[in-house]
C-alpha cells in the first residue's frame, strides 16, 4: 500500500501544488501573479523529478488495478509536465490573458495536467471516464479565456458541445463493454474478451463509439471540425497547451485502450493482432487517410494563420494514427518520437503566433505581410517550427515522418503511405504560403525592427535547442520510446 503511494508521487505533488496555488490565489491580492507562477513551476519541477524517480520501479498496478504505472505512462507524464511548464512560462510573455486572471490560468493548467497524468495511466473504465471529463472541463475553461474575444467564447462553446457528445459516446461504449464483460478493469476485460469474444456487430458498435470519443480528443477525421475553431479562438498559449496537452493525453488513452481492449499479443514479440472478428485497423486506416487529406487540403485554403496550423494539427493526427494502426511496437515508438517533436514545434508556433498577434493585432495572412523585416529572429524560429511540424526534409520532424511512413510500408499499407506523402507535400506548400506572407514586401518595407527581449530569446532557445537535439540524437529518443514500451504493463 505504501509503495502505491510512492508510485503516484507525481500526482500527489501536482495535487499539493494545485492546492497551494488555489489557496494562494484566494488569500492574496494584487501583484502576486509571479509568485503563483513560480509556485506552479516549482511544483511541476517536483513532479518531473518524481516521474524520473519512478523509472526505477518496474511496471506495476496500484490501488487494485485502477492505475497502471509503467514506462508508457511515465513517458507521457514527462511530456505533460513539460508542456504545462511551457504553457505557464509562455503566458507571461503575451498579453492575451489579463494579468489578474493568470493565477486562475495557472490553476487550470495544473488541474488539466493532473487529469492528463491520471488519464495516461488509467486502467479502469470509471477512472478513464472521470478523468476524461475532468480534463475536458478544464480545457473548456481554458479555451474561453481570451480577453474580450468573441472567437474565444465561440471556441469554448463549440468545444463544450463537441465534448458533451464525445463523453456521451464514450459512456455508451464503456457501458456496453461493462455489461458484456462484467468488469471495469481493462486488463480483466481483455481476458474475458479473449475467452469469449463479443459478437461482431456489438464489437463494431463498441469500437466505433469509443473511437469517435477518442478522435474528439486527438482531433481525427469525423470529430476534427472543432480543432481549427478551438485553436483559432483560444488565446495563443492556451492553443499551444490544448494542442500538445489534452490532445497528447488523448493519444495515450487511445493507444492503451485500443491495444488492451481491442487487440491481443501477436505471434512475435512487440506485435499485436486484432481481437475479435472485426478488423478495425481498416476503419482506423480510412480515418487516418481522411484526416491527412482533409487537413492538408483545408489548411491550403486558410487565410488565418492559427486556423491553418489547426488543420496541420489534424494532418499530424492522421500521421500518428498510421503509426498506431499497425499494432507494432516500432510504430508506437515512432508515434512517441513524433509527439516529442510536436511538443516543441506546436508550442513554438502558437507562442510566436500569439507574439505576432500582439504586434499586428491579427493573424490573417494578409495582415502578417512583412513581419519578417520587423522581427527577424522570431519569424525565422516560426518558420523552423512550421517546417518541423510538417516534416520537411532537413528537420527532426522529417525523421519522425520517415519512421511513421516506414512502419506503414513495412505492414504493406502502401496506399495509406502514399496518401501520407501527398499530404506532406500539400502541407509543405501551405507552410510556404504562410512563410511567404511573413516575408511580404521585404525589399521596400521601411518599418523599423522591433528588438526581441532576452526572456523571449531564452524561451525560444529552450524550444529550438531541445528540438534540434531530438533530431541529432534521434537514436537516443527512439531507444527511450522503445524502452518505455518494453516496460509497459499490458
Amino acid at each position, binding site marked *: 500500500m505504501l509503495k502505491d503511494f510512492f508510485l503516484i508521487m507525481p500526482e500527489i505533488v501536482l495535487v499539493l501544488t494545485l492546492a497551494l496555488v488555489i489557496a494562494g490565489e484566494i488569500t492574496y491580492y494584487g501583484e502576486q501573479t509571479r509568485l503563483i507562477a513560480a509556485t506552479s513551476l516549482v511544483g511541476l519541477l517536483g513532479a518531473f523529478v518524481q516521474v524520473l524517480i519512478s523509472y526505477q520501479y518496474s511496471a506495476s498496478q496500484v490501488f487494485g488495478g485502477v492505475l497502471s504505472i509503467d514506462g508508457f505512462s511515465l513517458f507521457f507524464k514527462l511530456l505533460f509536465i513539460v508542456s504545462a511548464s511551457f504553457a505557464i512560462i509562455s503566458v507571461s510573455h503575451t498579453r492575451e490573458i489579463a494579468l489578474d486572471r493568470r493565477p486562475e490560468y495557472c490553476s487550470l493548467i495544473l488541474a488539466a495536467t493532473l487529469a492528463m497524468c491520471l488519464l495516461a495511466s488509467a486502467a479502469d473504465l470509471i477512472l478513464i471516464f472521470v478523468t476524461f471529463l475532468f480534463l475536458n472541463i478544464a480545457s473548456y475553461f481554458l479555451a474561453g479565456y481570451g480577453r474580450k474575444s468573441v472567437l474565444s467564447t465561440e471556441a469554448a462553446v463549440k468545444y463544450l458541445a463537441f465534448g458533451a457528445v464525445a463523453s456521451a459516446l464514450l459512456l455508451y461504449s464503456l457501458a456496453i463493454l461493462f455489461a458484456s464483460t462484467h468488469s471495469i478493469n481493462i486488463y480483466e476485460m481483455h481476458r474475458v474478451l479473449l475467452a469469449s469474444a463479443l459478437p461482431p456487430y456489438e464489437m463494431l458498435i463498441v469500437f466505433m463509439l469509443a473511437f469517435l470519443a477518442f478522435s474528439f480528443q486527438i482531433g481525427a477525421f469525423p470529430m476534427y471540425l472543432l480543432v481549427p475553431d478551438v485553436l483559432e479562438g483560444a488565446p495563443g498559449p492556451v492553443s499551444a497547451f490544448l494542442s500538445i496537452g489534452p490532445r497528447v493525453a488523448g493519444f495515450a488513452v487511445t493507444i492503451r485502450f485500443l491495444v488492451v481492449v481491442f487487440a491481443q499479443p501477436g505471434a512475435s514479440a512487440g506485435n499485436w493482432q486484432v481481437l475479435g472478428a472485426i478488423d478495425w485497423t481498416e476503419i482506423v486506416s480510412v480515418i487516418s487517410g481522411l484526416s491527412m487529406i482533409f487537413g492538408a487540403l483545408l489548411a491550403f485554403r486558410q487565410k488565418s494563420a492559427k486556423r491553418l496550423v489547426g488543420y496541420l494539427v489534424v494532418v499530424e493526427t492522421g500521421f500518428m494514427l498510421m503509426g498506431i494502426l499497425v499494432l507494432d511496437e516500432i510504430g508506437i515508438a515512432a508515434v512517441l518520437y513524433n509527439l516529442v517533436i510536436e511538443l516543441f514545434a506546436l508550442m513554438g508556433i502558437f507562442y510566436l503566433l500569439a507574439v505576432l498577434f500582439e504586434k499586428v493585432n491579427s493573424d490573417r495572412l494578409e495582415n502578417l505581410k512583412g513581419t519578417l523585416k520587423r522581427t527577424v529572429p522570431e519569424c525565422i524560429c516560426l518558420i523552423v517550427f512550421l517546417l518541423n511540424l510538417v516534416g520537411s*526534409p532537413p528537420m527532426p520532424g522529417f525523421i519522425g515522418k520517415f519512421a511513421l511512413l516506414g512502419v506503414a510500408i513495412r505492414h504493406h499499407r502502401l496506399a495509406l503511405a502514399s496518401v501520407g506523402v501527398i499530404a506532406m*507535400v500539400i502541407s509543405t506548400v501551405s507552410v510556404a504560403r504562410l*512563410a*511567404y506572407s511573413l516575408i511580404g514586401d521585404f525589399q521596400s518595407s521601411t518599418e523599423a525592427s522591433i528588438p526581441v527581449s532576452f526572456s523571449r530569446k531564452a524561451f525560444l532557445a529552450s524550444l529550438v535547442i531541445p528540438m534540434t537535439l531530438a533530431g541529432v540524437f534521434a537514436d537516443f529518443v527512439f531507444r527511450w520510446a522503445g524502452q518505455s514500451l518494453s516496460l509497459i504493463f499490458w
Partner: protein
Amino acid sequence: MSNHLISLMIFFPLIGAVLQAFVPNARSRWIALGASICASICGIVLVMSMHTQVADLQAAESLPWVGFYAISYDMAVDGLNALLVLLIALLFPVLIASEWNQKIGVRGMHGLFLVLQTALFGAVCAQDLFLQFFFWGLSALPFFFLVGIWGGEGRERASLGAIVVASLSGALIFSALVLIYYSVDPHSFSLRELSGGRLSGKLFDFLGVELPISGAAFALMSVGLALRAPIWPFHGWFTEIAQEAPSSVFVALSAGTVPVALYILMKDCYLLFPEILGSAAQVIVGAGTINLIMGGLCAVTQRGLRRLLAFICLSEVGLILMGIGSLSPTGAVGAVYQQLLLGLAVTGFGLCSGIISDRTGQSIFVNAEGERTLGGIATRAPIVSTVAGIVIASLLGFPGFGGFVGHALVIIGSYSIHPVTVAVAGGSLLLATYYLFAMYRSVFLGKPASGFQAFQDLTIRERAYLFPVVTALLFFGLYPKPLIELIRPTVLTLLSTIR
C-alpha cells in the same frame, strides 16, 4: 586515411552561418566569406590529397546516427564526387563575394548561401541514402527564401513554384528511398550494402498490382531528380526563377544544385539498379536528347540574358544525360567532367550577365521590335567582354577551353552506341554557336544603342571573384589529365558491375 576534412568542410559553413547572424553587418560579411573559404580550402586539400588510380572510397568517415533505423553518418569521396567538391568549393566564396554590397538583409543572404554550401557538400559526399536525401532536401529550402525575399516583381509565383517542385520532388525521392529500405533484409540505407543488384527481382504489392521494386524506385527517383535538375518538360519553374531571382541566386541554383542532381542520378542509378540500367539508360539518353533539342530551340528565341542562360543550362543538362546514359567509359567520364564544367561556365555567364543587368538596369538585349538595347560594351569595358568571351567559348566547347574536354568525351563515348543522338548534339552545338554569338554581338560588339552610354568595367572586387572562375575554365581545358585520372578508375569499376 583518418582525417576529418569532410566533416570540417561540411560543417564550417553552417557554423559560419550561425556566427555571422549574431555580429553587425560590417563584420558579418568577413565571417561569412571566411567560413566559406575555410570550407573550400578543406575541400580542395581533400581532393588534392586523393590517390589517383584508386577506385575505392577515400577519406571515409562513418559513425552511426540513428541506429534504430540503421542510418549512419557515412561520408567519403571518390572519383565521381571529387569534381563536384571542387566545384562547390569554388562556387560559394565567389557567390558571397559577388553579393558583398547587398543592401537588404546581407546577413540573411550570406547565411542562406552558407547553408546551401553545407547542404550541397553533404549531399555530394554522403554514402548513405538517407543522409544524401537529408542534405539534398536541405538544399531546396534556401532557394524559397532567396527568391522570395530578393527576387524581382514576380517573386511570389517563382518562389512558390520552387517550393512546390522541391516538395514534390522530395516526396518522390523519399518514396523511392523507403521502398528500397524495406526491400532488403536487414533494412539498410548504406549505398555500399545496397549496391550490386541487391534489389533485382524483388517485387512489391501496390493496390493489388505486383511491381518490381527496382523499376518503381528508379522511376520515382529519376522523376524526382528530373524535377529539380531541370529536365524537360519539368523546367517551367526553372526559367521562372531565372527571370525573377538575383543573378547570384540563379547561379547557385544552376551551377550548384543542377550538377549535384545529375551526380545523384548517376551515382544512385549505377549503384542501385544495375540490372535494369540497360533499358533505363535508353530513357536517360532519350530525355537528354529532348533536353538538347528543346533547350537549343528555346534559347534561339530568347531576347533576355536571364532566360537564355536557363535554356543553355537545359541543353547542357541534356548533354550530360547523354553521357550518363551512354554507359561507355568515355561517355561516363565525360559526363562527370562536364558536370564540373557546366557549373563553372554557368557561374561565369550568370555573374557576367548579373553585372551587365545591374549596371544597365536591364537584361533584355534585343527589344520586341528587333532592335538592340545594349551593345558596344567591348570598347568601353574590355575585361568584362573578354571574360564573357571565354565563358561562351567554353560553353560551346572550343578546343582549349574547359567545355571542349567534356563535350568531346561525351560525344566520342556516345557515338558508337547512339549515333543519332550524337548528330542531334552536333546540331544543337551548331545552334548554340549561332545564338551565343548573336547574343555576344548584340551585347558587346557594334555601336551602343541610343540612350545607352556609360558602362564601367569590372571593379577590383569583381575581378577578384571572376578570376578563379576564368582560371579554372582555362586550366581544366588545357590540362584535364589529373582530373580524368581521378575519375576514370571509379567510373570503370562502376561500369564493370553493370556489364
